């Protein structure tokens, strides 16, 4: 679906990170956690391509004036890294944006009742919030949030409000444990008697570590990947990532925008 969206709010939630709330058409309310949108960040040809962003949350917007009808809306949590995201960060309420979505596959919610362990690095927390909201209805949920500094730990109170138990680790020790969040994950897994299911989104090295931990404990694990995207719908084949059978001699590429961005971790190649 392609639609024009109105910005409802766009606020800096941590240095370099913004949270933007946008209106959406009624059909958008059916978006699944882990799906993403492609946003046209400017009207001109530079930046040219749309930018992909995860769906942080879905809700309903009721305008303040009398007689106004409520409308679905969604939120994005984004980090300013370059031209496009810098432009996004300058937008204000009532500005318009051209959006394509929801796109991609989204997370599978797994077995009800089984403990769910969410692992997010930095802005990788973005798609995990909507996921957590869905999961808490049927399972205990714990979040492992990692980042370089305390500035990279986003929206933890929102997760806590859902009843999610949160573990925080930063590489410089400025918040929570000092070190990698995967260490906290490993100790939790060692305490657990029954099975657990893993869901992760964040930088590639973190996902690789989480995939290895899941394989070691033989538990299901889904990861949400990034790819450099031009179209977002499976037409350009720019966004592909190596699958588990991938070698230089027998290439095996998966389309991140269409077959993903969420994949079972064991289906991917983690070699590089």
């Amino acid at each position, binding site marked *: *679906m*392609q639609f024009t969206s109105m910005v409802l709010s766009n606020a800096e939630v941590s240095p370099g990170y913004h949270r933007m709330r946008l209106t959406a058409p009624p059909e958008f309310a059916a978006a699944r956690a882990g799906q993403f949108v492609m946003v*046209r960040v400017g009207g001109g*040809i*530079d*930046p*040219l*391509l*749309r930018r992909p962003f995860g769906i942080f949350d879905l809700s309903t917007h009721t305008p303040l004036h009398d007689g106004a009808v409520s409308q679905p809306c969604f939120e994005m949590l984004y980090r300013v890294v370059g031209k496009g995201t810098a432009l996004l960060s300058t937008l204000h309420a009532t500005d318009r944006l051209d959006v*394509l979505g929801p796109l991609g596959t989204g997370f599978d919610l797994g077995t009800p009742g089984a403990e769910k362990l969410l692992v997010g690095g930095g802005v990788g927390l973005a798609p995990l919030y909507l996921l957590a909201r869905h999961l808490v209805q049927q399972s205990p949920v714990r979040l492992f949030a990692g980042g370089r500094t305390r500035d990279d730990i986003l929206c933890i109170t929102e997760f806590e409000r859902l009843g999610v138990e949160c573990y925080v680790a930063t590489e410089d020790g400025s918040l929570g444990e000092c070190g990698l969040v995967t260490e906290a994950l490993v100790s939790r897994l060692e305490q657990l008697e029954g099975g657990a299911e893993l869901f992760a989104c964040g930088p590639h090295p973190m996902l690789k570590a989480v995939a290895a931990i899941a394989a070691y404990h033989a538990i299901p694990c889904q990861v949400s990947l990034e*790819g*450099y*995207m*031009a*179209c977002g*719908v*499976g*037409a*350009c*084949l*720019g*966004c*592909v*990532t190596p699958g588990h059978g991938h070698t230089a001699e027998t*290439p*095996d*590429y998966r389309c991140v925008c*269409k077959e993903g961005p969420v994949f079972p971790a064991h289906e991917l190649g983690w070699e590089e």
Partner: protein
Amino acid sequence: MKPDMTVNLAGLELRNPVMTASGTFGYGREFADYVDLEKIGAFVTKGLSLKPRPGNPTPRIVETPGGMLNAIGLQNVGIEAFIAEKVPFLARVNTPAIVNFFGSTPEEYAELAGRLDEIPQVAGLEVNISCPNVKQGGIVFGTDPACAGQVVAACRRATKKPLIVKLSPNVTDVVVMAQACADAGADALSLINTLTGMAIDLKSRKPVLANITGGLSGPAIKPVALRMVWQVSRAVQVPLIGIGGITSATDALEFILAGASAVQVGTASFITPSASQEIAQGMERWLEEHGVARVSDLVGALEC
């Protein structure tokens, strides 16, 4: 009165002169939810080879000002899977599907042309002799007029369907290449494919693309494409399809004035999935507003 938007392109009857460009529209189905395929003249599918091709390592694309570089490496499903999985969709759409294809020897090109000739759902063939991202198959055929002529002649013998040859801009003289292809039996010429380019990441001191170089497309290449269409239109008789950075009806009409009988929309579909449809509608409105009865009246009508 509504202007006449139809064109006859090398025997292909098109309802309007706007098509989508190979590699930017998948196999037609990918964008079908976003664009009414029956509002465009034709669509061209992703470059096809005999065997499936895996494509290049990632990163495969990067944006540059006003354009993008791609080094997909012609990833495609191969002819067998194409017939089994993609052709049924082509049959469902009442719009000509043109299949873009390539090989690594003239024999391979001819074999593919022959296989495609037997598929009734394939309305026309577009021979890619211009892909910058494969070592064999691209560069030589696309830059040496004798080799190009050989490939085109071999395809010509293998098919009765309209045969379009897509030219590379990465040559010293595009007119020589165009003439060689027309002489060898091409019914029409598409120009241009992407321009070889490169992007560097200063921080890592490395090229951005895994393949080091890639093909530049998008608005940034439009002036080069327009110039090439204009040069070729003055030298060869076969109809031309203008490609390169077309994002609006104005862009498309400029290509028609320069001598193109039809246009292809590439990168613009990534940004606006319905770009091709909107461009066709915009052209029709422009003709109506300017009292032009037939779009074909504008072909090559450049005053200079």
